[in-house]
């Protein structure tokens, strides 16, 4: 399946958001996720089905002003 993860196009087999995070070695309570510009809560990642062409953002705390 083709996905765009943090702006990069990837070809990857991951049916759910949780599976995608695991496949890409993303791990931690401090991560926030959005699919197609909408927040996907931590608790919903395991059930969230991904589709071809989905745009996924994986964010974490950074310096800010």
């Amino acid at each position: 399946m083709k996905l765009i993860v943090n702006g990069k196009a990837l070809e990857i087999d991951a049916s759910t958001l949780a599976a995608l995070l695991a496949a890409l070695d993303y791990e931690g309570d401090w991560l926030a996720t959005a699919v197609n510009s909408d927040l996907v809560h931590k608790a919903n990642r395991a059930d969230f089905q991904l589709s071809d062409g989905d745009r996924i953002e994986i964010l974490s705390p950074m310096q800010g002003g």
Partner: protein
Amino acid sequence: MFELLGTTLPSRLLLGTAQYPSPAVLADAVKASGTSVVTVSLRREMAGGRAGENFWSLIRALGTRILPNTAGCHSVKEAVTTAKMAREVFGTNWIKLEVIGNHDTLQPDVFGLVEAARILCEDGFAVFPYTTDDLVVAERLLEAGCKVLMPWCAPIGSALGPVNIAALRSIRGHFPDVPMIVDAGLGRPSHAATVMELGFDAVLLNTAVAKAADPVGMARAFGKAVEAGREAFGSGILEPREVAVPSTPTFGRAVFA
């Protein structure tokens, strides 16, 4: 002490966490400033990366309150989604709402700002809107549900200081009971003291401290300036006069002629 949205804060200075020479200097600057609120952001994490974890550990160790921002968002949708992501990660409903309208000046898109503020206030956020010094926009933000306002005094990172004192005076005077934090554009401690003397409740700054030759010393200086300005505001500042008035009593002056 400073009462903000039901929270008592020991300091009227809010400090950004970006652009410091090192994490250690950031931590020391936060301590030296006396601030009790720091701003943070969310950015893309690298696969397998731990940058976010390291930064988050550092921030939690500071023991301050967290004010996440939506810096860099140029649309209502981006800002709203970022705010929701920040609420989940940082565990606070406080959000510094930025909807940027111009790449060069980083001026807020005040139309998008009001729209995003309404959506987030209805969703239970305590929205701290980064806005201009425009009075009508301030009114609209309050109508949208904001309980605090954050007018700029100059463009972000410009260090120009308060470029439109009359507008700041006006916005302060029109909403005497609304907590107002001057955010962005402060370059030196005297700028902070000036806006505090006008009666603003607090200031938020980042670059002026982080990019100083000695960020820790500058953080301390800003902390003192904010306190001095606030105390001056509460102490009745003398209005300027066009003529000289002797400060030493003229009565009892010796005559030697």
